[in-house]
């Protein structure tokens, strides 16, 4: 092999062997048409025809399979019953038969038609000329028409008329946009507060039973809700309050806890409570590793260190999880000392403002 095509220069490589040869290969035109077997051999054509017919018959059988699955399979009873897996088996079978029935019905038609087209319809490539999307003649004419329209409308000669029209056309749709104002309330301060308050008991999720400090053994993690959540219904804010109030309760060795100033009495003998709402974009961070004391968010892998006031140690979250100050009431149950001292959940524009306001209120 020669090395005709090796670019030899150091910096740029332009591969050619002729300087500025403008001559190009001429377009040889369409290659000659090679006949197919079905074009030359009538037996092959007949065979192809029979194959297409067979495919259409398969399609019809597919439809029958669907009806067999629909009417012939008795699916009843309870699904995912630990004592009786039969209902699941029958539903799976029905789903399979219905789906395969449709699949065969469709494949039969589709493959049949395409096979027909490929083997029996002419396969001569044809040429069609392209035309410019628009012609110079049309353009000139259109321009003239537009000028006439503008001229006759008088919009250029009457500027005030034009300007008031523009003004009205801009304003009128805005009335409809305004209607969207009532899609929701417009008071961000709702984000400041949760249901937690002085003396509100911590209860288990989902059972709703209160928790004694002694129940929280070393290494435990409790998923916790405020007791007063049960007083709400779906119509008056149960979900919204729950979404803000969810808390994870853990017990660490008090000697492992790194407590900053002002938070010394927020834990009960190593029992700590933190908001479960991720400060990144709000998923519940419920993955607690009892030995490393790390909390992991399964959505975006933000990792918080429970021993270190849930500061961010990895991942995309922007600030630490808010801590819920807790205490023990007279009956030995865990209660909140107050609401969170900062808004829970992801950051938002008014958050810094809210933190200042909350510090003032506390």
């Amino acid at each position, binding site marked *: 092999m*020669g*090395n*005709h095509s090796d670019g*030899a220069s150091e910096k740029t*490589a*332009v*591969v*050619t*062997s*002729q300087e*500025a*040869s403008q001559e*190009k*290969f001429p*377009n040889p*035109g369409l290659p000659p048409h090679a006949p197919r077997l079905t074009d030359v051999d009538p037996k092959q054509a007949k065979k192809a025809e029979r194959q297409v017919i067979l495919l259409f018959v398969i399609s019809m059988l597919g439809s029958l399979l669907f009806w067999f699955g*629909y009417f012939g399979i008795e699916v009843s009873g309870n*699904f*995912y*019953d630990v004592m009786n897996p039969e209902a699941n088996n029958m539903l799976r079978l029905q*789903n*399979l*038969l219905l789906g*395969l029935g*449709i699949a065969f019905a*469709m*494949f039969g*038609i589709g*493959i049949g038609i395409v096979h027909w*087209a490929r083997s029996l319809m002419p*396969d001569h490539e*044809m*040429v*069609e000329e392209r035309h410019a999307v628009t012609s110079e003649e049309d353009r000139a004419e259109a321009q003239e028409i537009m000028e006439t329209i503008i001229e006759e409308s008088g919009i250029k000669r009457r500027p005030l008329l034009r300007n008031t029209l523009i003004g009205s056309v801009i304003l009128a749709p805005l009335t409809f946009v305004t209607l969207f104002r009532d899609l*929701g*309330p417009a008071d*961000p301060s709702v*984000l400041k507060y949760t249901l937690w308050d002085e003396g509100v008991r911590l209860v288990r999720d989902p059972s709703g039973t209160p928790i004694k400090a002694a129940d929280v053994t070393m290494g435990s993690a409790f*998923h916790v*809700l405020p007791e007063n959540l049960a007083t709400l219904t*779906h*119509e008056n804010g149960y*979900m919204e309050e729950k*979404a803000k109030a*969810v808390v994870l309760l853990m017990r660490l060795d008090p000697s492992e806890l790194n407590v900053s100033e002002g938070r010394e009495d927020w834990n009960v003998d190593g029992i700590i409570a933190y908001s479960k709402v991720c400060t*990144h*974009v*709000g*998923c519940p961070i419920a993955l607690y590793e009892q030995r490393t004391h790390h909390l992991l968010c*399964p*959505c975006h*892998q933000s990792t918080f260190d429970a021993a270190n006031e849930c500061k961010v140690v990895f991942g*995309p979250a*922007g600030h630490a999880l808010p801590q819920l100050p807790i205490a023990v009431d007279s009956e030995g149950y865990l209660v909140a000392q107050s609401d969170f001292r900062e808004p829970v959940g*992801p*950051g938002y*524009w*008014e958050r*810094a*403002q809210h933190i200042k306001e909350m510090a003032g209120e506390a």
Partner: protein
Amino acid sequence: MSTSMQSDYKAKTASGRIAHYVDQRVGASGVIKEFGRKIFPDHWSFMFGEVALYSLVILIISGTFLTFFFNPTMTSVTYDGSYVPMKGTHMSGAYASTLDISFDVRGGLLIRQIHHWAALMFMMAMSVHMLRVFFTGAFRRPRELNWVVGATLLIVGILAGFTGYSLPDDVLSGNGLRIIDGIFKAIPLVGTYLSLFFFGGEFPGTAVIGRLYTLHIMIIPALLLLLVAIHMFMVVLHKHTQYPGPGRTENNVVGFPVGPVYAAKAGGFFFIVFGIIAFLGATFTINAIWNYGPYDPSPVQAGTQPDWYVGFGDGALRLWPGVWPWPWEFEFLGGTWVLSVLLPFALMAGSVMMAMVFWPWIERWVTKDDRVHNILDRPRNAPFRTGVGVAGIIGYSALMIAASSDLIATHFHVSLNDVAYWLRFTFVFGPLIGFLITQRICLALQRKDRELVLHGIETGQVVQLPHGEFIEVHKPLDEYRRYKLVSFESPAPIPAQPNKKGKIGLMEKTRAGLSKIWFEDRVIAVTPAELEAAHHDHHGPAIDKKQKGSLEQ
């Protein structure tokens, strides 16, 4: 021309009479005359647009069925259907009706699965179609606007998918909405209000499923259909592009007529696509919402991911560090800036999308090529663009793979944190590496084409020449195959050009710099003279230096 506006034509057959009746009233003749024998080029890579269109049709058919049974309400009900692990559980009407569709409506499960698989197929087909259009340069004049319509379709498709994914109101999709809430809140100044308006108050509220339903079954499908109509109108207007080859020019279309061959193939293909999706729906479980449970703000589950086409956004959120090397959330100008959420969207996911939408103009600006192109580029013949395309795929894939970082960690027994570090690296450097490698591969393939044209195909037949030298016999290419390999352009860089005032502006310098990188290394198509010289070479004993080597321009 008769003045009565009526023709005296009488059809001979019954079908002829019906056709004539219709024609007289709606003018079908014109349509048939225009489209009946319209030519469409045939190539496998041209079919993905059709797959997307057919998937959309299947989505509309299966979706309509689902609307008859789905109840888009967040009102709490007590479930009493036949799925045992949820019996007696309180859940929203939306979730309960989705369970009913899955377990208590005959064939409901299949249609749900078909609907969801069709959605994944729709998005995949659109993506592959878009990549085909990109790599072959089909977006160039006159088709730039259709590229933008296509890109918009992709984005609207993502919205269609996301709103649909959220409707069953299960824990997985509910946490998806919660993430949307977090993203809204990260928008400076208005974010909190947007979130309050979207959810009708605080997250999750009682309104959002109903609102998403309106978007999902009315507004978004209408938008999709409108965009599809515009897209197809433009395809017909411009006529389809074609690959370079013998008989094909910028001014013609070579292919098969709509009637009968193309219509049969395209029509048959609809049923094939339906068959594929029905097969997937029959055999593979998709979105087993009964596992996830009804939405409740307290639980979450391992493997919380969006559908694949939203993955790049979720991955971007995962990769952006929150407090490294400094906190990305801070107070400034009276508000809290949540850059760890805002930047991944605006900068990482957003920039990939924007670069995609505006690519035709970027390319035109650098190459100064504003000619009409109806002949496609083979990807190897546009090494820079192909390199950029691969770079884009790598950047996008790094984000998309990041959305499954936890599953990668468990399934390949690597640390979750390491996966994140690797993917951050890949997102930043992968595209550059991919670009360089791809560009080199393209140039190498072009050289291979040159070799083929100049020296023909190796036959494996070795002969001894009279003077004792052994050579392998090469069979020259026939002129049709050769034409395919030589009919491309290889433009040279365009140096900076002074503007009207005779000055070279900064923009023009940048353009010239890019143009230089773009076309600096290139392979030029073989000319007849070169081929002649190569043939001559084969018979001559020595190598003539003058006809050899490379030239700089």
